[in-house]
C-alpha cells in the first residue's frame, strides 16, 4: 500500500523549485509566441517542450522518452536544421539580391558580431568550442546556431537555441536604437534609387545557387551541409517542373520540422542544465552578438560612403543580419519614419537575403577553423 501511495505521489515529491521556474519560463515563451507574436512557430513548441521536460519523472524525456528519441533522430545527427535549410532556401527569393549584388557585402559585415562575441566569450573564460557556439547566436539564424551548437557544445544546445530565437524575435527592439546611435538623421534619410525594370534572368537564378554551393563547398567542405541544402531549397523554388517540391518544402516540410525541432529543443531545457549562470551569460552574449552585427553592417556602409558617389543608406547595412525578413522590414519601416517618401524595402530585403548567405558562410568558416583547432571534422 505504501509503495502504491509513493508511486501516486511521486510527481509531487519529486517537484523542485527549479522545475517550477522552468514551467514559468516555458509559459513565458508560449505567452510571447501566442500573445506577442514573437517567433510563434518556434517559441510555442519550445515553451511547451520545456514544460514537458520539467515535470518530475516525465516520461517525455529520459532514455526512452519521445523527446529524447527525437533529439537523437533529428538534432544529434543535424537532420532537423538541415531540413529547415531546405525550407528556408525554398522561401528565399534571391532576385532583389541579384539585382543589387553589391548588397551582399553587408551580409558579410553584419556577421561581425559572431567573431566579436567569440572573442568576448573567450575573454570571459569560455573554452573555444563553447565560445564559438555562443558567438554563432550572432548568425541570427536558428538552424545555423543549432548545427554549430550540436558540433561544438551539445550541452548548451537549449540556452543557445532559446537565445538565438528570442533575439531574432526581438530584432525590431534591438536594432533601431543601435542604428540611431551610429547614424545621423541625414544619413538615415539617404535615398537609394531602385531600378525595378532591370530584372534577373531565370538562368542566373538557377546558376547562382549552384555556383555558391560549389564555391563554398570547395573553400570550406564542412559548410556543404549548411549551404548545400539552403541552395537546394532555393533551386526547388526557381526551377520549372518542381513546383510541388518547392511548395512542400515551404509549407509541409517547414511546418513539420519546425514543430519537431521546437518541441525537441524545449525538451532539452531540463532545470538542472538550464537554470545556471552559464545560461544567463549566454543570453547576455547573444544580445552582444546582435548589437555587434548591427553595428558591423552600419559602420561598413558608413565607411563605404566615404568613397561612393551614390551614397548607401547606412541603415541598409544593418539588414545584413540574417533575421530574415524581419530585419529588412524593420529597416524599411525606419526609413519611412525618417522620410515618408524613402522606400528602401527592396534594398533592405536584398541585404537581408545576403545575410542569410553570409550567416551560413560564417558558420562554415567557424566550423572549419574551430573544427581544425579541436581536431573535429
Amino acid at each position, binding site marked *: 500500500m505504501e509503495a502504491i501511495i509513493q508511486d501516486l505521489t511521486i510527481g509531487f515529491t519529486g517537484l523542485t523549485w527549479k522545475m517550477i521556474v522552468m514551467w514559468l519560463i516555458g509559459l513565458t515563451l508560449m505567452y510571447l509566441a501566442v500573445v506577442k507574436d514573437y517567433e510563434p512557430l518556434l517559441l510555442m513548441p519550445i515553451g511547451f517542450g520545456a514544460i514537458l521536460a520539467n515535470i518530475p519523472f516525465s516520461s517525455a524525456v529520459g532514455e526512452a522518452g519521445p523527446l529524447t528519441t527525437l533529439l537523437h533522430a533529428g538534432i544529434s545527427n543535424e537532420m532537423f536544421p538541415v531540413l529547415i535549410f531546405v525550407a528556408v532556401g525554398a522561401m528565399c527569393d534571391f532576385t532583389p539580391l541579384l539585382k543589387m549584388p553589391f548588397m551582399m557585402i553587408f551580409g*558579410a559585415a553584419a556577421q*561581425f558580431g559572431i567573431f566579436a562575441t567569440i572573442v568576448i566569450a573567450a575573454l570571459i573564460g569560455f573554452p573555444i568550442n563553447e565560445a564559438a557556439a555562443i558567438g554563432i547566436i550572432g548568425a541570427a539564424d536558428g538552424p545555423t546556431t543549432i548545427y554549430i551548437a550540436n558540433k561544438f557544445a551539445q550541452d548548451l544546445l537549449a540556452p543557445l537555441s532559446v537565445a538565438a530565437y528570442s533575439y531574432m524575435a526581438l530584432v525590431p527592439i534591438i536594432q533601431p536604437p543601435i542604428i540611431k546611435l551610429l547614424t545621423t538623421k541625414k544619413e538615415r534619410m539617404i535615398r537609394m534609387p531602385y531600378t525595378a525594370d532591370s530584372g534577373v534572368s531565370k538562368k542566373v537564378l538557377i546558376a547562382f545557387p549552384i555556383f555558391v554551393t560549389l564555391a563554398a563547398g570547395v573553400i570550406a567542405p564542412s559548410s556543404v551541409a549548411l549551404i548545400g541544402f539552403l541552395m537546394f531549397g532555393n533551386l526547388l523554388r526557381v526551377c520549372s517542373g518542381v513546383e510541388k517540391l518547392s511548395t512542400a518544402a515551404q509549407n509541409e516540410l517547414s511546418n513539420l520540422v519546425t514543430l519537431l525541432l521546437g518541441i525537441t529543443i524545449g525538451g532539452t531545457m531540463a532545470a538542472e542544465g538550464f537554470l545556471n549562470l552559464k545560461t544567463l551569460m549566454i543570453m547576455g552574449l547573444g544580445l552582444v552578438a546582435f548589437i555587434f552585427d548591427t553595428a558591423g553592417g552600419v559602420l561598413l556602409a558608413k565607411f563605404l560612403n566615404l568613397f561612393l558617389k551614390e551614397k548607401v543608406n547606412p541603415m541598409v547595412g544593418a539588414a545584413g543580419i540574417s533575421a530574415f525578413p524581419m530585419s529588412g522590414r524593420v529597416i524599411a519601416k525606419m526609413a519611412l519614419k525618417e522620410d515618408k517618401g524613402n522606400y528602401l524595402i527592396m534594398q533592405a530585403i536584398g541585404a537581408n537575403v545576403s545575410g542569410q548567405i553570409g550567416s551560413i558562410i560564417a558558420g562554415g568558416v567557424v566550423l572549419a*577553423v574551430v573544427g581544425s583547432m579541436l581536431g573535429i571534422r
Partner: protein
Amino acid sequence: MNSVSQALQLMGIGLPVMFIVILLFIGAAVVLKKIFPYDSNEEKE
C-alpha cells in the same frame, strides 16, 4: 594556445575569408548577369 588567442586567430582568419567568399559571390553574380542578360520576354514564356 589559450582560448582567447584561439578566438583572435579565428577572427583573424574568419573575417577576411568570409569577405573574400562574399566578394567572390558578388563577382559571380555580376558575371552571371552579363552572361545571361535579362530578357523581358522571359516572363511571358
